[in-house]
């Protein structure tokens, strides 16, 4: 049963992550390959605040969210002046730089050795250590995040985002400050990714930079594309499918050293297939 709880906890963390990326890719039309970087900023900042300053789970989650939003705003201001492809490459460059920092800034991040001994979260004064407890807490946070993002996207703000996605110039003509909207969206998306990072850190209690590399960003993009760009339900569906898929491989008795490449190849084929035949994903509304 603990194993089922573990998978559900993973799904809770990844739902926040994929939904946060979907705001960018599916609702605003900004293709970003740096979600894992913000995920990592959240995870590392939260762990370091706990380990070095002894901050509690909640403080060590809130501050990284603000930090990630700030970094998101700066990155957005720098990159959004540029056209589509420049934006994609600049954001990708940001992902590579954060990966580089996590691996090489050994005095702070301990580089390839990773961080460990991160504290458990506590909720209403109770320290959480069982998987059921985690599931309860993370389930609540995940639902709340989904609710907030959903509320945001059906609001007039969300409709402007969709308008930007469909026709930037027309939206500009209607008197909407596009850059302003995009910067806010970027900040919100980064903040939720950092929240997911903090949850990740306090669940596993150890961190390794590989969890926040480019391939993680690609996985998050894959989930969003397959689930459906522009559909939050699609992101949830995609998350469930792609978190459970490696577990299914495990039951097929595929040797553990060939399982990851097979899994990756499958994702690659899915991306090609969906672009050719179903660019809106399983249940999405926006054809990337």
């Amino acid at each position, binding site marked *: 049963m603990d194993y089922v709880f573990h998978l559900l906890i993973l799904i809770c963390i990844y739902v926040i992550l994929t939904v946060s990326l979907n705001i960018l890719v599916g609702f605003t039309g900004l293709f970003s390959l740096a979600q894992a970087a913000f995920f990592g900023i959240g995870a590392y900042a939260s762990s370091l605040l706990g380990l070095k300053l002894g901050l509690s789970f909640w403080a060590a989650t809130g501050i990284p969210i603000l930090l990630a939003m700030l970094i998101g705003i700066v990155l957005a201001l720098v990159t959004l002046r540029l056209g589509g492809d420049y934006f994609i490459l600049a954001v990708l460059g940001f992902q590579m730089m954060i990966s580089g920092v996590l691996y090489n800034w050994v005095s702070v991040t301990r580089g390839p050795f990773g961080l460990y001994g991160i504290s458990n979260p506590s909720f209403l004064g109770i320290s959480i250590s069982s998987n059921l407890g985690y599931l309860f807490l993370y389930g609540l946070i995940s639902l709340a995040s989904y609710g907030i993002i959903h509320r945001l996207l059906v609001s007039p703000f969300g409709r402007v985002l969709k308008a930007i996605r469909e026709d930037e110039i027309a939206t500009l003509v209607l008197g909407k400050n596009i850059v302003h909207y995009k910067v806010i969206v970027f900040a919100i998306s980064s903040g939720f990714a950092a929240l997911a990072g903090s949850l990740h850190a306090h669940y596993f209690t150890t961190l390794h930079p590989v969890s926040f590399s480019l391939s993680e960003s690609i996985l998050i993009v894959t989930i969003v594309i397959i689930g459906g760009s522009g559909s939050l339900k699609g992101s949830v569906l995609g998350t469930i499918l792609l978190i459970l898929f490696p577990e299914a491989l495990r039951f097929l008795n595929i040797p553990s050293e060939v399982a990851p490449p097979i899994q990756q190849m499958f994702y690659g*084929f899915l991306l090609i297939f*969906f672009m050719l035949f179903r660019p809106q994903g399983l249940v999405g509304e926006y*054809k990337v």
Partner: protein
Amino acid sequence: MVLQLIVNGVVSGAIYALMAVGFALIYNSTHIFHLAHGAVFTLSGYTLYFVVKGMNLPLPVAILFAITLSILLGIAIEVRGYRPLRERKVSLAAFLISSLGIFIVVENGLILLFGAIPKLITEEPLKAYQIGSLVITQLHMTVILCCLIIFPLLHLLFAKTRVGKMIRALSDHPELALIIGLETRRLYLFITILGAALAGVAGIFVGLDVGVTPIMGWDAVLIAAVAVIIGSVGYLPGAGVAALLVGLVQNLSVLKISAQWQGTITFGLLILFLVFRPKGIFGKMIASRGA
């Protein structure tokens, strides 16, 4: 020491230039962010490894195989991957995602076949010449020599020949090119073949120099993309010059900063350019050509 680093920088810059010019060729005319360029590069290196190590055939045969397979993969990507998307007029992000998918498939296919561990192609130390305190291997001389042959030929192709002019027309205005009756399908195929061959050559050099790993394509294609932007999109020689610059900066930075930061430095350079000079080094020249 500094002189040696400059020489090393020129050599890695020359290899980056092969990648970057191929990437720029495809990017300028199709506007596809061709990540799978890195897959072609990796496949070339592994083909070389397999033919030399697995089939025990001599190096020239292996090189022929490597280039042929690179071109075939390039054609497959264009015909099966990009062409159907182009004819449906999808967004550029869709091309990018498809390209990413192709890259992942090839990369992990190679991991399944050969494992994730780096492989060496030549075990014996490379022949080297010593000039004073400067050491340069035979391979590195070949790299520079090859570039000195390939790039002027490319320049001639684009400046003088009919097909070169057609490609330039296509890059400037795809719809107009179609209207005046250019066979755009065949031109795109030609561009793909040219780009894939360049990536193939780069893959061979890197394979011979430091060996092959399944993930080698990532760095190669990302550096190429960075060079294309720094060297001004739309200006082919710019990509080559910028690649050389990246190679030099990476190697000279070792003087001050430890080598594992090279990747971070490259992307830092990109962000600096994007902030302060988003049109790249040669931005003014493109503007004055009216393109």
